């Protein structure tokens, strides 16, 4: 074992000295390899972190959201539905929620308007940010994206024209901290009275209903019962939302990785070509090594160490750069593709996190094929007869 270890150390020693002789070629290969790994690792780190943020944001969301459907579209739901749900055994609480979207013609951005539940509905997602008592009528709390696009700060007036053209003058009470910007960038939190007035919404109707259950294992049963009481409603569980997020990010990640497929394939061809295109000088070197007592297996191991070191270094460099890119530079190169389009981009500060299984998968899917792609040409070069140096 010690002998084997010593031989490997010496092989690496020789490999490094050998690689130093072909600096330009190895450096070029390393850069291309690291660049590909950088993109791949950035995609997986970014989508992983977004998923994580989504999960975190939904932790405190209501177990079930109830939305009335008319002609397949989301419609307002009235107080009768709320009372019917409260009567179902196992329902801990049920509350009507008020929220909606508003297209601001002043800057072409869409805002999400929301009335906090005043602590009745558990905090989760946007509600987590808007948690607590609603602002007083005439006051708003807004997200960082809204504040930036309208150039307002706490204490300033926010002027909004409602869809009917009526001007609303609201005092900015607070701007949400940047830590929550992933979910709060486009948020405008206002009082129930202002919300109903702004959207000309009558009393007794809600955007949707939020439902809490005592025993999470009963969710399916409760949803089945509720569906009988409110047949024109759809019931969205927290698990459904998480699944949707997963599917969305999987799809976006998949599209990007598919586009990357061409680049990866081109790189594999380059790696194969590099390994198979052994120059006469390299073949001569292999002949010398064999003549002075190296076995075919030892020559192959030395060459494989070269592939392994190149790919390992490229992996580390690519992954490290991707980590910095995603968690310290907010994935600037990938955001437009993976995050989707928006006028009010949130300033995201994703929580640095590495998933061991994903790192291992990426490692095996990049380093493995590269080393494998170089194995056959290396073997073909290494089986040269040792007496070639004598001819």
């Amino acid at each position, binding site marked *: 074992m*010690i*002998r*084997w270890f*010593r*031989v490997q*150390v*010496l*092989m690496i*020693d*020789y490999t490094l*000295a*050998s690689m*130093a*002789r072909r600096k330009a070629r190895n450096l070029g290969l390393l850069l291309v390899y690291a660049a590909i790994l950088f993109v791949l690792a950035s995609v997986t780190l970014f989508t992983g972190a977004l998923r994580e943020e989504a999960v975190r944001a939904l932790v405190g969301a209501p177990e079930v959201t109830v939305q009335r459907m008319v002609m397949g579209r989301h419609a307002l739901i009235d107080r009768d539905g709320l009372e019917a749900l409260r009567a179902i055994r196992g329902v801990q609480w049920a509350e009507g929620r008020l929220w909606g979207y508003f297209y601001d013609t002043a800057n072409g951005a869409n805002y999400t308007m929301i009335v906090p539940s005043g602590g009745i509905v558990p905090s989760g997602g946007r509600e987590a940010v808007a948690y607590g008592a609603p602002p007083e009528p005439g006051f708003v709390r807004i997200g960082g994206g809204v504040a930036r696009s309208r150039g307002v700060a706490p204490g300033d007036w926010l002027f909004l024209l409602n869809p009917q053209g009526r001007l609303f003058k609201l005092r900015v009470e607070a701007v949400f901290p940047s830590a929550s910007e992933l979910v709060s960038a486009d948020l405008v939190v206002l009082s129930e009275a202002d919300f109903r007035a702004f959207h000309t919404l009558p009393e007794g109707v809600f955007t949707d209903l939020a439902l809490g259950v005592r025993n999470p294992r009963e969710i399916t049963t409760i949803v089945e019962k509720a569906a009988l009481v409110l047949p024109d409603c759809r019931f969205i569980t927290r698990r459904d939302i998480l699944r949707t997020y997963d599917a969305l990010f999987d799809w976006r990640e998949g599209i990007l990785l598919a586009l990357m497929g061409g680049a990866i394939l081109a790189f594999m061809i380059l790696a194969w070509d590099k390994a198979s295109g052994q120059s006469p*000088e390299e073949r*001569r*070197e292999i002949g*010398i*090594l*064999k*003549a*002075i*007592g*190296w*076995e*075919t297996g*030892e020559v192959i191991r030395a060459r494989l160490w070269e592939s392994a070191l190149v790919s390992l270094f490229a992996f580390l460099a690519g992954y490290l750069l991707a980590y910095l890119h995603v968690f310290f530079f907010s994935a600037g190169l990938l955001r437009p593709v993976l995050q989707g389009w928006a006028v009010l981009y949130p300033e995201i500060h994703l929580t640095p996190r590495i998933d061991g299984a994903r790192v291992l998968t990426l490692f095996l899917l990049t380093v493995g094929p590269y080393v494998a792609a170089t194995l056959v040409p290396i073997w073909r070069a290494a089986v040269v*007869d*040792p*007496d070639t*140096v*004598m*001819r």
Partner: protein
Amino acid sequence: MDTPMLTLRAVTKTHNEGEENACTALHDIDLSLEGRGVTVLRGPSGSGKSTLLSLVGCLSRPTSGRIHLRDPETAEVRDISALPERFLTLLRRRTFGFVFQSFNLIHGLSALENVMLPAYPLGQGRREIITRATAWLERLDVAHKARTPVELLSGGEVQRVAIARAMVNDPPVLIADEPTANLDSDLVRRFLEIVARFRDEGRMVLMTSHDPRVWESVSVDRVVTLRDGRIAGDEPGPASPARQGGGGAP
């Protein structure tokens, strides 16, 4: 008399056997080589000298015939004619050191790194290998160039580094293929001095040469002449007791 270190019986070697460009380089060679002394294989180009060296040095296998090698450590005699490559490599590592025509050092590596290369597969510690390689470079007066890339060395330095590489594993047999080709008289003389030292230490030196300065050297015990792949002559060299009037067969 001791068992010969190497014995060749009816050895024939055909390159590219079975192909259109097949070429028989050696025909029916019978030869015995003692475990010490300096033997020169001489003959014109294409006479089969290098092919014979590669067979003796376990670099290739004969097409027909038998080669027996006496293990220098155990004195056991083994037929090495049909050994798999792996075993030939192990034997080559333990028994032979090679100095190739034009020396075949690996460019881009330093003199020390080149000398260390044959010791890598043995699994010794790096420090131990460096010490041994440096000792050989010192012994051959080229230690001051240990860190110099070999392509920057002079002809004489390259020659001595190549010898140090051949000797780093302390083999009992040094095999040299045309070691003095393209060298001036001074370098030939220095090489022959080194060979004489190895001879005095009890090692066996086997080399090919068509340089009269080599086979007429006072340190040569035996000269075997090859022509068209056959042995055309086998005579004592200037260092042989037979030539010095001491009697005894080469």
